């Protein structure tokens, strides 16, 4: 079982390389689609299979574990959670794309880049090595720059350029942070860096070099996660991409390369210090509020969804930051920290499901009606029953309506924040939840209800494959809300204890 972990990365890469060769042979034009779908399905199955298995760290090339000369792959609970999320959304998106991408020229480029992006995200999640993390962050990012511009329209090119420039600034900061950490410790392996930093901290107070490295890393990763002072690129880039890519970007890319990497670096490398926790809390709270406020006034459906992504990811980062703050104290309240992490990670998973669902349904609506503006839609319930039913489920999930998953995760975050003693933040989270509810009432009112506009009159139900993609995610939205307790045991508790355990080892010997 252990041995199949690298396949999660290598299979998509090999298939992506293969597609480029195969497409030169004229008779095999239909093959890329099938190959891509099967690769994603295989990945999903592998990541689900890994859930029940205890996986030791894997050393690529056999250079370990006695001496960590090689690159380590860490497949702990946190990584497994992310793997399931990524591959689930990727599978649904690629099914959706099989119909959607037909209106674009050279679709094989799309499939190849899509597979490379997914493989790279899996690699980011598995990375147990700082530089390896950086390299695959870059692969995923560069693939997404190209995919944002896939339509080659003016707006898309401009959004892609902006995204590329800001993204590469973020990467440079991340590399700078890695370089400084290497210069201090002489290691790149996360566990070894962690160990060496602890030794340094026992010898004296946190030095300015570690702080500079931490600042560079957090700033770079916050840029990738589109946290509020660094969010400028997201509202342009995410709506510009083709719908399956918007779903991947908003649903998993900003989480794998932003939130996950932030959590990993803060907990498993730097150690959950209160300085870093405060930064995370303020980034999260600011994103949560400002993202929601910016999203109210939007009339472009996809742009509205993009702004609300900022806000929802803010929830996740806020919860993780509070958990880090709780852990960093002299007597960490592990139950509260665990609940915070559970809420945050559950919301991360849920947001991946419902935001991808909403983006996919916006793509389906856009394809049928030719518009993205809310005011031009309306009355889609009758015209596109499946799409609008799924869209409604997504909207109710994100708005936090009780039986759906969004309600539970927000509730847990609110309760956990209060339990950890952050009543004000908890109240803030409730207020933002109300605003989100209003936003999505507006969406439902304009998209699904009311009189059909002139553009929508000709709309018909989307093709079958697109509906399949939508339905998969809608089922996940409903089921993960209902099966919360089961998922907590299987998925989220291993994930949060993976983070907490590494954090514990460093805070034990820490001097305040």
């Amino acid at each position: 079982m252990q041995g199949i972990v690298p396949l999660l990365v290598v299979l998509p890469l090999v298939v992506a390389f293969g597609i480029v060769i195969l497409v030169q042979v004229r008779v095999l034009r239909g093959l890329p689609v099938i190959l891509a779908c099967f690769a994603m399905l295989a990945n999903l199955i592998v990541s689900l299979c890994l859930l029940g298995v205890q996986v030791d760290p894997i050393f690529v090339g056999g250079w370990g574990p006695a001496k960590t000369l090689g690159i380590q792959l860490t497949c702990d609970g946190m990584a497994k959670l992310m793997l399931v999320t990524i591959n689930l959304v990727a599978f649904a998106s690629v099914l959706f794309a099989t119909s959607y991408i037909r209106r674009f020229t050279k679709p094989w480029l799309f499939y190849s880049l899509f597979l490379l992006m997914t493989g790279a995200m899996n690699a980011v999640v598995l990375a147990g090595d700082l530089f390896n993390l950086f390299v695959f962050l870059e692969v995923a990012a560069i693939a997404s720059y190209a995919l944002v511009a896939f339509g080659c329209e003016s707006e898309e090119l401009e959004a892609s350029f902006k995204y590329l420039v800001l993204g590469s600034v973020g990467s440079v900061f991340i590399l700078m942070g890695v370089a400084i950490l290497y210069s201090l410790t002489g290691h790149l392996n996360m566990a070894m860096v962690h160990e060496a930093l602890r030794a340094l901290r026992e010898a004296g107070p946190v030095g300015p070099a570690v702080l500079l490295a931490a600042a560079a890393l957090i700033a770079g990763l916050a840029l990738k996660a589109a946290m509020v002072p660094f969010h400028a690129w997201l509202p342009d880039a995410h709506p510009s991409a083709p719908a399956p890519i918007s779903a991947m970007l908003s649903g998993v890319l900003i989480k794998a390369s932003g939130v996950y990497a932030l959590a990993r670096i803060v907990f498993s490398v730097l150690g959950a210090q209160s300085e870093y926790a405060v930064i995370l809390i303020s980034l999260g709270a600011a994103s949560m509020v400002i993202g929601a406020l910016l999203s109210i006034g939007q009339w472009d459906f996809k742009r509205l969804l993009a702004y609300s992504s900022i806000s929802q990811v803010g929830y996740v980062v806020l919860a993780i930051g509070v958990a880090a703050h709780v852990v960093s104290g002299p007597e960490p309240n592990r139950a509260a920290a665990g609940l915070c992490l559970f809420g945050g990670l559950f919301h991360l998973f849920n947001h991946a499901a419902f935001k991808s669902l909403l983006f996919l349904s916006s793509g389906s609506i856009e394809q049928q009606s030719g518009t993205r503006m809310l005011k031009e839609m309306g009355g889609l319930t009758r015209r596109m029953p499946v799409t609008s039913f799924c869209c409604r489920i997504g909207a109710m999930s994100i708005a936090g309506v009780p039986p759906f998953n969004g309600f539970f995760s927000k509730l847990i975050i609110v309760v956990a924040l209060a339990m950890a003693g952050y009543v004000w933040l908890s109240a803030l989270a409730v207020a933002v939840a109300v605003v989100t509810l209003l936003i999505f009432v507006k969406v439902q009112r304009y998209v699904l209800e009311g009189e059909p506009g002139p553009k929508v009159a000709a709309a018909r139900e989307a093709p079958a494959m697109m509906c399949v993609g939508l339905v998969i995610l809608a089922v996940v939205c409903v089921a993960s809300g209902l099966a919360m307790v089961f998922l907590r045991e299987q998925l989220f508790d291993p994930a949060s204890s993976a983070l907490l355990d590494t954090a514990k080892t460093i805070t034990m010997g820490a001097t305040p």
Partner: protein
Amino acid sequence: MGVELFIVALIGFMLLAALIAVEARDLLSSVICVGAAGFALSVIDLLVGAPDLAITQVVVEVVALVLLIRMVVTRSDTSVTAPRDALRTGLVLLAGGVILAAAFFAVGGVQRAGTMPPFGEPVLAHAKGDKVPPGVSQQYLGDPDELDKVSAGTRTADDPNGLGAAYETGTANAVMAILLDYRAYDTLGEATIIFVSILGAYVILRPKGRIGPEEGLLGRKGSA
């Protein structure tokens, strides 16, 4: 000391070239100045014992420069006329001041505790018993004492464990050994990056993105 003076002079040159590149009115001169900075960097690589990097930097610089010059030279709009944006400039100056001050502390301008190791004394140069041991690179190069034993004939190299790249991988060039054996997985990522960016360039350079008439997504007319 001599090398350090050279390095300071070269970085100073790079700084100057970068400033000219950023401020030049003519886009062609700006691109050429960036090339100059890149070549200076490759000379620095040579000085600090990184010939692999020097070669790669030079050839990459040549290709990148050809790309950039082709981009600039055939366009009619080659000069910058827009005035400076005072607000953003001020913002950058402020942020720059903060970053420079932080860097000044971090490299040990004020005190020695908890800063980056001084230039020329990396972690690799530490002794084994130091507070921070030499780190992973010493293992790539090999344990000097053990290697001396092999040279003196008191240890055989049949079990290469701990003897570094030359014995463990059979490669004279330690950088290549790291790149393609110890950390070959990173290099898979690197190969993927160049693959992805070239596919990306193809994507962007397609004459037409969508099948059918070109129309703006937001309902208004698309491109000019």
